[in-house]
């Protein structure tokens, strides 16, 4: 390098250094929100959420936390699909401006320190506090407003368009004989009904149907899956409860661990799973055992239901799912019916083909009767002379028995 080049390079370097060290005015960016955390369902319309926020003073930090609660709740429990998220982002400022409508100010809170209120407050720097709060989110009000703003589809309309999902609650096989089974079933059915889900009864009177369905491949809880299918449920919720007892010098405590698993009936796909242990309560005090069971159950369902909803929103528009069984089917049924289904349905999967039965899982935009009609036509066309009958044309399963 020549001397001139060195001088120019140094000069340029000095110039760039000065520019780099010059104070840059940074435009204040958008507010930063911390993610929230679901705590429990208060009732069908309100949920308790824990959130973190920052600000120069207490009220600003609390407001930041409440907005964070709101944003987290919308994006994680309501506007879960990409299109819904986009719609939310477009309306974000308008929604956050109405935070007082959807998220309560945390109350003073009790002396026990548990429950709603400010849980923590630390000074992060000279002009910044960080707070953690637990407060109410008015779920129903928020949902109605988001529907009105076209951020999310109205659940009823969306469900009506694609077909309402039905749910059934079925105990885990190991819990069938559990003495709390009846109580839990009642609590679960009540919980779902209050939140406007359609619940079907998965009673054991469906034995014949259950036998006819045969093995549901891949289902760990085969019996439960068959019962749910026989009952016509799109989603079944397995449950079990285990009582936990503790003993202190002054008395016994009681807690419940509730496990719930939500599965899509025809595919056996796991939609959500939670195991929740309730905080221990004083066993000697009337009603505490029941409250422990309800609390664990309610908290578990509060976490699983949004997972079911999110899945249903995404999958349901693609059509209804069916489990189709051909019993004693003649040779070639699998290939011939496969071509029928390919014409009628968007998704076709042959589960198994044996000498005694051929089983398909299909997803079609038609309902059960329309699909049965298509099967009927297909058999007539492709398996001429076959003698058969429909043993079932249920909500989500069709059984054809060849004679």
């Amino acid at each position, binding site marked *: 390098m020549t001397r001139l080049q060195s001088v120019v390079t140094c000069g340029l370097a000095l110039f760039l250094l000065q520019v780099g060290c010059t104070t840059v005015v940074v435009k204040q960016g958008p507010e*930063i929100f911390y993610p929230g*955390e679901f705590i429990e369902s208060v009732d069908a319309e309100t949920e308790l959420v824990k959130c973190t926020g920052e600000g120069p003073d207490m009220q600003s930090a609390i407001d930041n936390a409440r907005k964070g609660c709101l944003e987290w709740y919308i994006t994680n429990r309501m506007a879960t699909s990409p299109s819904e998220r986009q719609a939310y982002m477009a309306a974000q400022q308008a929604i956050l401006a109405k935070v007082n409508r959807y998220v309560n100010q945390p109350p003073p*809170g009790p002396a026990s320190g*548990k429950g*709603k209120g400010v849980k923590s407050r630390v000074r*992060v720097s000279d002009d910044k506090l960080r707070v953690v709060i637990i407060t109410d989110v008015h779920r129903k009000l928020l949902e109605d407003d988001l529907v009105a703003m076209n951020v999310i589809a109205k659940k009823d309309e969306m469900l009506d368009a694609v077909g309402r999902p039905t749910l059934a609650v079925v105990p885990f096989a190991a819990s069938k004989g559990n003495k709390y089974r009846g109580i839990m079933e009642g609590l679960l059915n009540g919980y779902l009904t209050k939140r406007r889900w359609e619940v079907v009864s998965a009673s054991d009177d469906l034995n014949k149907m259950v036998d006819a369905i045969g093995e549901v491949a891949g289902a760990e809880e085969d019996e439960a899956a068959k019962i749910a299918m026989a009952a016509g449920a799109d989603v079944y919720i397995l449950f079990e409860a285990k009582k936990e007892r503790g003993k202190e010098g*002054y008395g016994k405590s009681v807690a419940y661990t509730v496990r719930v698993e939500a599965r899509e009936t025809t595919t056996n796909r796991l939609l959500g799973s939670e195991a929740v242990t309730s905080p221990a309560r004083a066993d000697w005090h009337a009603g505490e055992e029941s409250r422990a069971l*309800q609390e664990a159950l309610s908290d578990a369902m509060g976490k699983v239901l949004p997972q079911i909803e999110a899945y249903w929103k995404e999958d349901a528009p693609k059509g209804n799912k069916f489990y189709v069984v051909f019993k004693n089917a003649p040779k070639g049924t699998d290939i011939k019916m496969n071509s029928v289904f390919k014409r009628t349905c968007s998704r076709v999967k042959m589960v198994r083909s044996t000498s005694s039965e051929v089983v398909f899982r299909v997803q079609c935009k038609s309902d059960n009767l329309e699909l049965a009609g298509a099967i009927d036509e297909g058999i007539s066309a492709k398996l001429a002379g076959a003698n058969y009958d429909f043993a079932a044309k249920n909500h989500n399963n069709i059984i054809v028995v060849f004679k």
Partner: protein
Amino acid sequence: MKQLKTLMLVLVLGLSTAAGAAEDKEQKMSADQTQQRYQRKSITYLGMVVAPAVRADAEHLGLVEQAIRRGIELKRFDYNHVDLGRAFTIDQFVATLREYVKKRAVDRAAAEAEFEARFKQARVYMKDVERIMNSAYFYRINVKMLNVRRGKCPEKKAEALLLGCVPGAEGMLATLNASVTFWRANLVDESKPPYQLIKEVTHIKPVWGFQELALEILKDPEKLPQAMHNAGLAATREAAGGLAQWLSKGMKQIPDFKLKTPVQAALSDGVEFMLGKQEGVRMDDTYDVTEFDAAGKKSLIGYVKVRKIGDARASGEGTPSYAEKVKEKKGFVGGEQLFEHPMIGLSAGVSFVLEVAVKDVLGQDGLGIYPGAALYVDYDLAPLLNWPEFYVSAEADFLYVPTDFSGWNVFLIHAMLGLKKKWYAESLVFTVGLRGGISYYQVETDLGSYEGDSLGFGADAYFGLEYYIMPEFSIFSKFAGRFFTNPMQMAGGGDADPEMGGQVQIGALLAF
């Protein structure tokens, strides 16, 4: 930048989820050390132990017991009415206490819990019940000294001022020293010792009480014994009342018993908080204002004094109390942690005085300029009258009166009693006072000291400025206007000019 923010959010989400997985629901719902609240304790009185050297009768000891129990068994406690007659050993007592507290544990926990809407009742978990079981205390009074005898009010002016008696006056003098020992009962784990010593609360030295006997009673041998008995009881009551305040303050300093709560709202001139009548919060109570940093370190950032008492309940409902800022090292922005700073409402001060009288009291030419010193004791009446910063004030000042008489030192002494009111503008305090009292001369010569029998009477009014440095220490200045009759007039000095003029004081006060 957007990607960086997204990354930060994802990182925070990941960390918080990982942390959250390890926490159970009860932990997630609980406040941390930055939002501490006072949780009620229960207390049982075990009895009184009297030292062998104490020769007091049951009546006097009863007064002591009554006064100290009143100072200890405050509204912030639940009382366990355990039948002590059935317990002959400490283990039996603890077993009885266990059953008593267990029966009430869920209800006591419910009183401090939030209302759970889905179950339509208070949210009470086993850990709350355990906390109640772990919050049972018992205490014993230890009387170390109680001496009631006929005597004289101390000659030392400062001691006489504290006792509120005339130096040298004859009456009944009670000297009392006692302590209170606290234990926490172990009601939870029977494999461990049944109780744990918390603290023995003592006072540094004995407390005195004095009740004067009237001159005519002293000359009446028939009435004297009964009068002495009554005066002895009054003196004991006074000493016990004084000691009870010190012991109560010592008890409130024990961390288990100290009131604490977060600031609910920071206002321009004070704070609101959720303690009140249920905990026995009193007017003018002082609280430390602290905050925590992210590392958990606590810093003291100011003080507040209670000005309005609400009916806040432990469940979180009710109206908050209000406390005025009296010291603010760093701006209060809400959510700070308040800790009780126990005080007994007594303050004692000393000041330098300079009085300028319009005419010299000894009749010398020109103005009277009298330097001196003053001692005073104030007692806060706010908890009794519910009017903030209202004091009864007793003062004694000693003014040097320059004189032409060689070998003579003349002092003009005033003893006054009055009322004082303060107003705070944060750390700057405005005071206004009005007092009345007596004055007399004290002359010191080479032959000895002589106190005049004649008294002057008068009053003064003052305006003062005080600077609040900390709850225990302030500095002040006062400007007073005074009028007193000249004691020499009473002694037949008809031409003696009254004491009329102004006064300035600069001093410091200690508060307890």
